[in-house]
């Protein structure tokens, strides 16, 4: 069978698998977050952690929960790396240096999972499991919790309560992520992914590093995290040995962000509201996949940085999915992509990670964009904008704007300053336009909490470690606080009944306005920078 036909069939299989689980899994997540009963395991967790699951929180307390949890997460992960030499399974890799430890701690807590370290020589198995795996779970659960809190802002009326952050966090971890991760970890082992506590295996006289991969591989994809257990990430045959594992991993990346649109529709009591979101996400994802695929198929060195078992179609599918979801895992090296193909993966991130975006983060990002879109539509027709029965006044639009603008602001400041530093060219792997793209990609990846890289860049200097760390933190925290503020002010409102003048938010008109807003905001913000990097390169 020709490669393109097989590739198209593969996309068909993927879409069919997602369609099959869309309703049951989406509705399951809706029940998880709206149910009132606590399982026995959860009650034990609440008792041990001394939190009251029955108490409901204001938006500010909910936000303090997220901030506090993230802060202690960073400190815990930093300390864990700094004392690695006393932990088991460290294989003399020693304590992780301060710069890497700081960057990695921020990176994993913010769901970025940027790999500024070489796992084979820096990270022992204990830190990988007790530190990195844990944040893979809980940072994903935080994203889902914030998304659910925003949905409650739309569904609740005249209340100052958004739910309980600890309950949402624990339920997302225990009822959603953990069971799926366990089942698919076993599936991946059966398909060939390794799970070993040794440091290396002998292959024809050479030692090849090995690790307990399977358990982390699953949650790395399922939680749209992306930090590799091994340096080559999901391009490493121990992480992703064949076409089957590749499909499973792409499926795991997409399953929660995609199905959360169903969860959303179910929770707001109108499933068409969710269908329109997945429609917009799906159209943009498909369009960008086409660009990456065609560009890579016509490259000068199409196999450079790609694994032969994946070839062009499976590499393009993975690259497009990982950058459209804030995952950042890679099964091929994006730095070696064509100007157009690599530029498209960059543009996926610049859309703000909502096509379909990360777990939870994708849903709340597109809902914020919907608020902006309705505001723009309201300006055009001269009416007070509404969305899902809630009026979008000054406070709501301001919160949405802050949430949307946080990422471009930190990205462009970070990349701009870096491009001006005299020392920067020494850290780039490529010169000229491609070098600028490496810088842009790094700051886009950090600010969007994606974590993939044009990996030729040597981002280990203090400047990169610190500035990228700050971009990750601000790119995560500012939108979350703004989103929770938005949720709080929405929940306080009484619902406005729909009238003849209400713009329906389920049809193709709304879908066009929403999709257009995603593209327009990214274009207005980033065209000048893109023109100097990937666009110039694609025209070479």
């Amino acid at each position: 069978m020709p490669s393109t036909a097989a590739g198209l069939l593969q996309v068909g299989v993927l879409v069919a698998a997602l369609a099959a689980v869309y309703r049951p899994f989406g509705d399951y997540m809706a029940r998880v977050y709206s149910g009132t009963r606590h399982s026995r395991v959860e009650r034990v967790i609440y008792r041990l952690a001394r939190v009251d699951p029955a108490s409901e929180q204001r938006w500010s307390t909910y936000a303090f929960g997220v901030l506090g949890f993230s802060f202690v997460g960073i400190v815990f992960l930093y300390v864990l790396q700094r004392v690695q030499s006393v932990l088991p399974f460290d294989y003399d890799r020693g304590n992780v240096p301060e710069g890497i430890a700081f960057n990695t701690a921020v990176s994993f807590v913010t769901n970025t999972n940027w790999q500024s370290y070489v796992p084979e020589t820096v990270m022992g198995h204990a830190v990988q499991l007790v530190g990195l795996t844990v944040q893979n779970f809980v940072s994903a659960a935080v994203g889902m919790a914030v998304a659910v809190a925003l949905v409650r802002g739309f569904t609740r009326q005249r209340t100052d309560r958004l739910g309980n952050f600890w309950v949402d966090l624990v339920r997302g971890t225990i009822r959603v992520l953990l069971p799926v991760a366990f089942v698919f970890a076993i599936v991946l082992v059966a398909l060939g992914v390794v799970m070993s506590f040794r440091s290396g295996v002998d292959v024809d006289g050479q030692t090849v590093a090995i690790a307990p991969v399977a358990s982390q591989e699953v949650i790395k994809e399922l939680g749209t995290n992306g930090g590799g257990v091994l340096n080559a990430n999901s391009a490493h045959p121990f992480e992703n040995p064949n076409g089957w594992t590749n499909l499973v991993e792409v499926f795991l990346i997409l399953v929660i962000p995609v199905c959360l649109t169903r969860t959303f529709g179910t929770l707001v009591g109108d499933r068409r509201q969710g269908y329109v979101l997945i429609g917009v996400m799906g159209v943009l994802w498909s369009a960008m996949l086409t660009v990456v695929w065609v560009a890579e198929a016509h490259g000068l060195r199409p196999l450079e940085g790609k694994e032969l078992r994946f070839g062009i179609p499976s590499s393009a599918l993975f690259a497009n999915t990982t950058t459209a979801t804030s995952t950042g895992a890679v099964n091929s090296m994006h730095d070696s992509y064509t100007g157009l193909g690599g530029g498209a993966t960059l543009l996926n991130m610049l859309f703000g990670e909502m096509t379909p975006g990360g777990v939870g983060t994708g849903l709340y990002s597109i809902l914020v964009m919907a608020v902006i879109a309705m505001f723009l539509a309201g300006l055009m027709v001269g009416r007070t904008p509404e969305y899902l029965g809630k009026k979008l006044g000054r406070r709501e639009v301001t919160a949405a704007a802050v949430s949307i603008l946080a990422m471009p602001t930190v990205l462009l400041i970070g990349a701009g300053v870096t491009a001006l530093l005299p020392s920067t060219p020494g850290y780039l792997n490529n010169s000229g336009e491609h070098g600028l793209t490496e810088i842009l990609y790094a700051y886009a990846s950090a600010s969007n909490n994606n974590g993939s890289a044009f990996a030729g860049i040597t981002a280990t200097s203090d400047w990169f470690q610190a500035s990228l760390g700050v971009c990750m933190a601000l790119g995560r925290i500012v939108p979350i606080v703004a989103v929770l503020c938005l949720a709080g002010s929405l929940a306080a409102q009484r619902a406005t009944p729909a009238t003849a003048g209400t713009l329906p938010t389920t049809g193709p008109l709304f879908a066009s306005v929403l999709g257009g807003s995603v593209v327009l905001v990214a274009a207005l913000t980033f065209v000048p920078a893109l023109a100097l990097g990937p666009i110039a390169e694609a025209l070479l």
Partner: protein
Amino acid sequence: MNNLLKQALAGLRVLLVLTVVTGVLYPTAVWAVSRLPGLHDHAEAVDTTLVAVDREGDEWFHTRPSAASPPASGGSNKGEHDAGYDAVVAERRAAVARREGVPADRVPDDAVTASASGLDPHISAAYADLQVPRVARATGLGEDLVRRLVADSVDGRGGGVLGEPGVNVTALNRALAAAR
């Protein structure tokens, strides 16, 4: 401020409990299941053919070029307009053509480009084909036998659809060693 501190302390307690669940119990459970007889050899990569390292000598099939610096895995991360890397690729092409005694335009792309992991176990059918005469000469095995071993070492697409087919160099070289 008080509220933030209170939430942070609650966060620390929740984090510690979830660390036990997701960082200790969960991986231990996956590891325990991976000890089952049907899974153990996968999990421990026993006699693995998932990765390939290049073996020196004309009696072996060669892998794709590796840009990794062991023990770390990885690729070259070179963009397609990198002039310096053009020269590296041209040099590799000339070397392969010299080694196999063929014109440079017969050398396939996978023979001169570095994979993403630096451990790619596969080469294209064309690159395997190119190496058959040399390996047959150096090992004293007939070309027909070597070609049959190559055919036996092909990993097809998963389910006929997923991924791309390739010749597994590690499996092929072990089959060669066994045949001698």
